[in-house]
């Protein structure tokens, strides 16, 4: 059981870190670009919110499977397939949680407005300098919310990991799948323990999100 919890936390942690790195430039572009077609990209990013996880998982299974043209370059270096592997799970989780990271960061960037960047420019900060010295620190609450949501969302995901992970013990079997299998095996007691653990975790997540929101609301001048 410890192994399952560790694997789940590892998946959520790796996903969160990689996703924050990926989502930051994307959210920045969506927040600041004047391009008319940016909302098309925005819609693609938001797609996992409304897409059934099994649909996403199914396409990922095809995309990461041995017959996929996307895998061809990797097969040259000896990776035949990413389906039913931990790496495959990470890719799936990143795509599945993308909107939960991009949206809060984008909102935080947009809430900054134009003025702080004008201030920074008149104080000799180049646009790149201002991104690191003004945009990132001012958007910090957005990053915190994005990290918490991504982590929690990955902990709780089921459909996608079942489709592309298959629930292989020690490799792709995470908490939500373990619970499902325990119930199937009529091991109600163990299922209870894990389910209660996730319930407490989910409550802690929501509470911390609300506290962050309250605090940043108060800080805003």
């Amino acid at each position: 059981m410890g192994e399952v919890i560790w694997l789940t936390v590892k998946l959520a942690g790796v996903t969160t870190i990689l996703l924050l790195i990926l989502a930051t430039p994307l959210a920045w572009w969506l927040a600041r670009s004047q391009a008319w077609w940016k909302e098309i990209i925005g819609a693609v990013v938001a797609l996992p919110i409304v897409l059934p996880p099994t649909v996403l998982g199914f396409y990922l299974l095809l995309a990461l499977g041995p017959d996929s043209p996307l895998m061809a370059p990797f097969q040259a270096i000896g990776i035949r397939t990413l389906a039913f592997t931990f790496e495959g799970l990470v890719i799936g989780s990143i795509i599945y949680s993308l909107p939960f990271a991009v949206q809060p960061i984008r909102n935080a960037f947009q809430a900054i407005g134009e003025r702080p960047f004008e201030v920074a420019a008149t104080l000799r900060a180049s646009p790149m300098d201002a991104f690191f010295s003004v945009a990132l620190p001012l958007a910090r609450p957005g990053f915190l919310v994005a990290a918490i949501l991504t982590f929690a969302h990955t902990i709780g995901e089921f459909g996608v990991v079942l489709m592309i992970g298959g629930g292989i013990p020690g490799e792709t079997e995470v908490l939500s799948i373990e619970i499902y299998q325990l119930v199937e095996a009529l091991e109600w007691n163990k299922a209870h323990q894990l389910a209660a653990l996730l319930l407490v975790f989910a409550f802690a997540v929501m509470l911390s999100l609300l506290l962050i929101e309250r605090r940043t609301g108060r800080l805003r001048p």
Partner: protein
Amino acid sequence: MSAAPETSATGLIEASFRGRLGPFALNADFITPAAGVTVLFGPSGCGKTTLLRCIAGLERLPGRLVVEGEVWQDEARFLPAHQRPVGYVFQEASLLAHLSVRRNLLFGFRRTKDEQRIDLDQVVGLLGLEPLLERGVARLSGGERQRVAIGRALLSQPRLLLMDEPLASLDRARKAEVLPYLERLNSDLAIPILYVTHDLAEAARLGDRQIALNEGQTGPVIDSRDGAGDAGLGARLAEVGPDRLFEDLCAGGAPPELAQLTLAALLAGLPPWRAPDQRA
């Protein structure tokens, strides 16, 4: 590029901008000494802020801008805002909310490559900021914020200080608090200031020179301390009186509203003993 030599004299600010930005059409053209305070004034919506933003490089309109012989903008060149040695004080203090007062003050200071002529101690003394230094900006009053914003702009070692109605968002008491600091700026530091306001009294009190602005068009530079024998408007006024000067201004191409504003500023800036019956 033409082989023409640098025609601009040093010691001058030469600006000319023509074009439209949203609702504002600008047709501005002026040359003023790069010393003391030049006030740009006019009714709200006349394009004062747009003009100032063009000078800072925050907006881009076709035109030409030369500051002390250095071309900041012409047909071939547009120096981006962060490469112009300007300080800009916005109407709202616009302090960076994630930094303390001290770190707001030092934001530009740490990024200047020029010689640092103005240091933190000097600015803190000049603007009375000592008790505020370690505070977060959320715990400052409106007047305190604006003083920090002015200090921050000064510490970026500007060769030109641009101030956009820095007193307009303050109530009467806060205005009275900040105004003496502004006057000291002028006398203590050798930084030329372009100061935007819609308040004629403020323009007369702070300015060494005034330029009226109406519907995006600038009038001639007013220096009310021009004495007899000067070629300036002040001397002309003493010579021919307001009615004739008004006609002259209109004949020189100024629309009546602009000529009227110019005359009003000239009269407002005149020492009382020089304008006994002309105010009627």
